[in-house]
């Protein structure tokens, strides 16, 4: 008995983690998947109902707007975060004085919650007392900046706040990547007469391919899950102009008693994340095994 215990102790220690994740992650996802094929309203029902919820989902104007918003947001969020992140990383890499201070400033938003920063941005962007008033008081009397309450433009306020929060993270990833390149490579290129611009554009940035890939995966992941920031900044409004899938899901599940529909929307999000993550995990594992 004691021998058996000793031999299997590692597995016994592993068991709680594996059991918890098995139940709370895999079991729960499967449960949600099952419910998405039922006609559940307030309470879950267990008779299968086919793809009805998915048909309803893709016929829903609100869901289509959510997906549209997500695509616009993800595209802009990715472009701005990566461009700003790379610029800051390359500039910081030039033996800058006070680099530590600047880095701290660029990255501190990552330590704050989206609710905290959303609250701040909401105040800054509000048309009556925020940025608009600042410019008017400075003498630009016709200045208007009402994106927050403008149906067409409100989604871009979420981009502004999202980029502000996450660009520093991309900077940190690229800075770490640039610093891991051997000095010799840069020196050799310089002796061959390559200018600083060429060194980065032709040599260093192409070497950063894995960092691009990682940033891409993380940022897409953040944007698909965007929830807190929208709640704090616009609550999906004005109207439903800034709603996104994560918001759609919780509203359907907990405010509108559309349990089946919300499960279907959750599974769509799950599949979107899986489409990005599985290739990523696969390539990471291959890289690790190759080492």
């Amino acid at each position, binding site marked *: 008995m004691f021998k058996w215990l*000793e031999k299997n*102790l*590692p597995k016994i*220690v*592993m068991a*709680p*983690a594996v059991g918890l994740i098995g139940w*709370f*992650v895999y079991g729960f*996802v499967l*449960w*949600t998947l099952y419910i998405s094929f039922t006609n559940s309203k307030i309470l*879950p029902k267990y008779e299968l109902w086919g793809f009805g919820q998915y048909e309803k989902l893709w016929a829903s104007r609100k869901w289509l707007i959510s997906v549209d918003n997500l695509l616009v947001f993800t595209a802009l969020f990715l472009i701005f975060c990566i461009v700003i992140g790379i610029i800051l990383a390359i*500039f910081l890499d030039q033996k*800058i004085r006070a680099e530590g201070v*600047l880095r701290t400033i*660029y*990255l*501190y938003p990552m*330590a*704050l*919650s*989206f609710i*905290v*920063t959303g*609250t*701040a941005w909401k*105040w*800054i962007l509000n048309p009556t*007392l*925020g940025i608009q008033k*600042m410019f008017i008081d*400075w003498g630009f009397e016709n200045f208007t900046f009402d994106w927050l309450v403008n149906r067409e433009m409100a989604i871009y306020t979420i981009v502004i706040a999202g980029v*502000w929060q996450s660009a520093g993270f991309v900077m*940190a*990833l690229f800075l770490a990547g640039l610093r891991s390149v051997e000095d010799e490579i840069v020196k050799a290129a310089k*002796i061959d007469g390559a200018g600083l611009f060429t060194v980065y554009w032709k040599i260093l940035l192409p070497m950063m391919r894995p960092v691009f890939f*990682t940033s891409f*995966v*993380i*940022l897409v*992941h*953040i944007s*698909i*899950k965007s*929830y*807190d920031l929208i*709640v*704090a900044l616009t609550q999906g409004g004005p109207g439903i102009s800034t709603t996104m*899938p994560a918001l759609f899901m*919780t509203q359907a599940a907990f405010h509108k008693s559309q349990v089946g529909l*919300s*499960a279907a*929307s*959750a599974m769509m*999000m*799950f599949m979107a*994340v*899986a489409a990005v993550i599985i290739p990523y*995990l696969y390539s990471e594992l291959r890289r690790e095994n190759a080492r």
Partner: protein
Amino acid sequence: MQDNLQSSSYKELEQKSKYTNMFLRWFLYFVLILFASYFIFPLYVMVVTSLKTMEEIRQGTLLTWPSSLNFDSWLVAWGGRGYGAGDTFLRPYFWNSIKMVVPAVFFSTFIGAMTGYVLTKWRFKGDQWVFLFLLFGCFIPFQAILLPMARTLGTLGISNSVVGLVLVHTVYGIPFTTLFFRNYYISVPTELVKAARIDGAGFFKIFFKILLPISAPIIVVTVIWQFTQIWNDFLFGSTFSFGEAAPIQVALNNMVLSSTSVKEYNVDMASAIIAGIPTLIVYVLAGKYFIRGLTSGAVKG
């Protein structure tokens, strides 16, 4: 000879481009400082707004410096105005968050250390797959587990309670803590463990005598990561709790959204600062470890 030639022409080149270089340096600093002001701007606005009176807010602009250091809004945000119903303030929710964060961080870190230890030092057949199995939990969009989680918490009788949130955060923290410890322990030479095993040391003795003493850095990284994630969580907090059991982020959001009376932006900003200050302090004090968690864990958003 050739070396000489090269270095002298190199010097000449440097001489010529001295002015271009100087211009470039200035441009560099200009851009870096421009971005720094963009990043610092909201924090600055939050702090000065929280120190102004509503009268000052209406008269000045976002950037105006407050006429005096006035901490009234902070006191109201923290402790309320002292009249009964409808007086919402952050103090009780702040303690809710503390009561939620401390056990959740402890349990998830401990479990992660144990699984990381087994996965690297007591390898068994298929351990790679077990790791992948756990790792996948880092990526799932939590929307896919909200509905069954709400039901489970109800069945267990711990919905709308701090205990329920501790459970949720512990479970969904395990994939990350496992990842951190596994990646750290994998670089600890296995020979150490083998030697100890030959000397007759058991499973727990090896962990506490050999691995734990060298684990300080990764424990710090993990604790900071988990602390920040759980303190800042809003999705779980807002889904599984309301009213008195809510954590601080949920309370902050409710306070800001409540449209009972005139909007008091100074109190809103003071509340936001109070809700953000614990993680901000950790970041300033231990930024190195915070960044290490971000980049080495580099999987999560």
